[in-house]
């Protein structure tokens, strides 16, 4: 059976492929790139899940756990306020650790691959 004819118009409408497509494809298959993706995702994905769950927990507790949230901790400072301020703290913390992690573990590898790309593509 013959190959299905590609929709002519659809192909035209896509951005023209460049001569560099082959270079990208080659880089995509390297062990370095696999490692880069693994390192990025192994931080970004679990951290995203964690802060979303933590935030939704806060929203749900504010809605449906009044008794607990109203408990006073010290003076007029109640659990709800402490929980809210902890959201600020965790946001700052995750942002800081993400940046440090990327700087140490991902940026050097990304630079190495970018240099490889630059050396293979005629300027």
């Amino acid at each position, binding site marked *: 059976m013959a190959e299905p004819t*590609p929709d002519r118009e659809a192909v035209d409408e896509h951005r023209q492929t460049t001569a560099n497509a082959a270079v990208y494809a080659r880089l995509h298959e390297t062990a370095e790139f696999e490692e880069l993706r693994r390192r990025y995702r192994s931080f970004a994905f679990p*951290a995203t899940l964690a802060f979303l769950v933590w935030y939704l927990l806060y929203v749900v507790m*504010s*809605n449906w756990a009044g008794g607990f949230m109203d408990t006073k901790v010290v003076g007029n400072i109640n659990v*709800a*306020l402490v929980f809210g301020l902890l959201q600020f703290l965790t*946001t700052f913390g995750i942002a800081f650790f993400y940046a440090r992690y*990327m700087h140490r573990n991902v940026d050097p590898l990304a630079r190495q*691959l970018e240099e490889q*790309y630059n050396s293979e593509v005629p300027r």
Partner: protein
Amino acid sequence: MSSQTLTAVLFVTVVLITVGITFWASRQSSGTADFYAGGRSFSGFQNGMAVSGDYMSAASFLGISGLIALNGYDGFLYSIGFLVAWLVALLLVAELLRNSGRFTMADQLAYRMRQRPVRTAAATSTVVVSVFYLLAQMVGAGALVALLLNVESEALKALTIVGVGMLMVFYVTVGGMKGTTWVQIVKAVLLMTGTVLITVLVLSKFHFNLSELFQAAADNTGKGQKFLQPGLKYGVSTTSRIDFLSLGLALVLGTAGLPHILIRFYTVPTAAAARKSVLWAIGLIGSFYLMTLVLGFGAAALLDTGPDSKVAASGGNLASPLLAEAVGGGAGTTGGAVLLALISAVAFATILAVVAGLTLTSASSVAHDLYATVFKKGKTTEKDEVKVARIAAFVIGGVAVVLAIPAQKLNIAFLVALAFAVAASANLPSLLYNLFWPRFNTRGAVWAIYGGLITCLVLVFFSPVVSGSEAALVTGADWSWFPLSNPGIISIPAGFLLGWLGTITSNEPISAERYPELEVRALTGAGSEGAVHH
């Protein structure tokens, strides 16, 4: 000098400074990369300031402290949602987008999809989100000026809106992204300085003891401990609780889909700089929202916030300026007049800067996505494209003015929360699918964008916000059947679901074939657009 004269002088100063910056920037700009992306030559810190400037709109500065002043603890929930949302932008979007796009949100979709349908869809949702956001700011400007000058005149409000509209078109058409970015930076500095000043003055009245401040707020409002606990506004019924959950979702997922925030990541030269700018933004915005807590409870403790008060009449929007007057010595004193004028001028600068950013975003998308690619099929010159962007800025400015004048009774917070819901429903699904799902294709992108957008708009139209409640836009008729005022809890999953459904029901191998190229580029920056050197 009376308070009004002083306010007028400071307003004029703000306008003159920003106009000066714009002229200065226009002399250093040429070509599309300058106009759309400020030459990609801003540092991470500078762009972080500009991102904060873009984000801390009238809704944040005037809105949140007002909501806290009126509703106590429940208002603080906005601050938290608006801040945590930045982690989505930081971890999943900012760096990858910076590497894979050029000027607009649609660029990274067009990287592997059919250009015309995805650019048309993305440009449509960009303009819709930006116009909702614009309306909120312009309505705020009208209300602010009218209440400050103590004249309740529709004509004056309309005149203010027209004036703001003319200024914003000027900033964008003359200064482009470079001018707009510098306006944001100056505004961010003014806003942070003003907020720190008022926060310190408020805290000094309570011996820098938060507990004492809260006690005073609970006493002064007459609501007691309830004022310090969640639920005063949203704990009324199960529907209001679900509404709050819906709002919470829209807030946390909306930021990373706001086009005027996304295109800011193109103004820096590398992904690392994009990351740094989000870090600065999180630091600045986080500190700012912590201070809104003090401003809001301070207003509740020191001002009259009863049902007939000036604060309540403005929907809380005047809580910050009136609080400034109170801590400066009160109405009629020199200190009070100076601080009131100062904070009002800061609020005005905030509004001007944000409308400029929003107009630029929509104009860029119309020129770059619709005109250059969809109409001209890429056969256009840079000069033509920038010319069209300028015309588009003019038209969008005009549309926003025309819509804002009759919209003066709309609630600002509602409009902004709606813009967040649209952004989260229409933009975020296609953005995330495109970056992380190889199989994703043109139909998926188009369905995700239009599906999220339409679901969102339809649900709002049939919600109690538009008809069937006391505070509705249309009184005297009731066609509401959707009980929530924020549609996020339905429309965001709808956007994701339709994006998935559209993808699996169409066969477009070319999109998947090009995913590796997009992925390499997004993660490594290989072949991405660099800074422009003059």
